[in-house]
């Protein structure tokens, strides 16, 4: 049960998108999200759809995995669809009228538009998390935020990135620890599976307290180990794995540029 928790959704395949520089992927994702939202007519939305499908297929991650993510936000999609259905323009032909609520053809069109946009957003964002390890993402954030050092925030950027890396690194460790403590308390007769809400919350105390204490202990140990290795902040630190922009990144940029231009053109001329 606890073992099944995974953080991040990295899915290993040897696709060109996996090889791309995480910084480039991140920036392109932001661009893509903006332009998907800018798609105003059916033509530009179709283009967005093709772009997103292209990325998803190129990632070689099974489409099943993308559907899994969509399923998680299905309630939001349904809610948006339903609400939008009732907000069509009043001049449009009425499809259905229930009490004070009316569904127009325009409303239906809007609902479809809105939900497709959300689906595309989720798929395109998943394509980043599926193809990039959490650590690469952290490195990318650090690198992208590095201009902040010119306004005196150099250490803040590095510290933030380090905190994220450590947090990610310790998730499996803590999961394992939690499992051990749960077993130990179960062996002492703790009942974690039955009882009402209040009883269940109370039953968590014997697990949370030892877990908290051991996290603090680990934090001290890690801090000491880092000091022993002369860690003194980001100053002068080099990396074993340097982020490098390669040919794949140029193709990706080109592909996205074509998409963005397409959206602008479709929005202006149709």
């Amino acid at each position: 049960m606890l073992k099944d928790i995974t953080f991040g959704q990295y899915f290993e395949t040897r696709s060109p998108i996996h090889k791309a520089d995480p910084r480039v992927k991140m920036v392109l994702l932001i661009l893509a999200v903006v332009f998907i939202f800018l798609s105003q007519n059916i033509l530009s939305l179709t283009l967005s759809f093709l772009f997103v499908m292209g990325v998803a297929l190129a990632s070689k991650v099974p489409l099943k995995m993308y559907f899994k993510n969509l399923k998680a936000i299905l309630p939001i999609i349904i809610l948006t669809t339903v609400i939008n259905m009732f907000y069509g323009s009043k001049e449009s032909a009425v499809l259905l009228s229930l009490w004070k609520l009316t569904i127009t053809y325009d409303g239906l069109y809007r609902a479809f538009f809105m939900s497709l946009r959300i689906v595309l957003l989720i798929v395109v964002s998943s394509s980043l998390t599926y193809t990039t390890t959490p650590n690469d993402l952290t490195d990318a954030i650090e690198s992208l935020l590095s201009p902040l050092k010119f306004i005196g925030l150099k250490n803040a950027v590095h510290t933030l990135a380090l905190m994220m890396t450590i947090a990610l690194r310790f998730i499996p460790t803590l999961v394992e620890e939690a499992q051990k403590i749960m077993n130990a308390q179960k062996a002492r007769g703790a009942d974690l599976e039955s009882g009402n809400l209040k009883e269940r919350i109370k039953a968590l105390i014997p697990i949370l307290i030892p877990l908290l204490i051991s996290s603090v202990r680990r934090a001290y140990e890690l801090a000491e180990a880092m000091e022993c290795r002369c860690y003194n902040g980001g100053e002068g630190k080099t990396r074993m794995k340097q982020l490098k922009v390669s040919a794949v990144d140029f193709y990706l940029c080109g592909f996205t540029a074509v998409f963005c231009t397409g959206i602008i053109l479709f929005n202006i001329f149709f």
Partner: protein
Amino acid sequence: MAILEVQNLTHTYGGNTPFINDAVSNVSFTVEQGEIIGIIGHTGSGKSTLVQHLNGLLKPTDGKIFIEQKNIWDNPKEIRLVRSAVGLVFQYPEYQLFEETVYDDIAFGPKNMGLEGEELDTRVREICKIIGVRDEYLTKSPFDLSGGEKRRVAIAGVMAMNPKIIVFDEPTAGLDPRGREDIIGIIEQYRKATGATVIIISHSMEDMAQITDKLLVLSRGELVMFDKTENVFKNGEKLREIGLNVPIVTRVFNKLKELGVDVPQDVFTVERAVEVLKNLKEGDSNA
């Protein structure tokens, strides 16, 4: 009468994934009431997985476990009863302490079994007397104790449930020699006072030689030997084959024999070694 019977126990991790791994495969053995059993084996040989089956924390992939002739998985809803019949002290049990006082922490297990009031109080104080936790400790916070004391309190927490079988997973790991002796002492005192059956996992052949009646040897999830402790240690060759060894004194005596000194080969504890050497010396002076 057999208090514990394990029949063809198999446990497979990662059932439906490509990473199928038999942690324990086809292990069968029987433990009689009051015995002290040691489990030895290399890291990853399945010792911890095996003992977590005994109190129903893990469910066997295949095979059966009987406690007092009763299959523990006959009624899965009552598996918590099994947990009070078979106490399990995990590795580094001091990390499970959480209550405000030592007293409350020791009382956690018995309370979960439904004891309260005077009965609970008697139970906690009884166990403290047996293993020597002094009264003034009971009101202290467990987090103010030293490492060895914390472990003693954590072990008391399991013993207070008054289990018929108590299992220790490396009870002396990470302790100094004094601490090891203390813990071994506690286990012996507890057994003397309650007559419980004891199962111990340990890497220390010296500890094993000192207290166990029988040894169960595991290698890669399979049972290699299950015999009286002295018979297992007489079989040093086989132990070395699977990366284990006999106690250091035994190695010394084996070497002496190789060098041509006529000494017995069944010396497994320091006490026995002293006795044998004394006899040898007296024999020499007599000659």
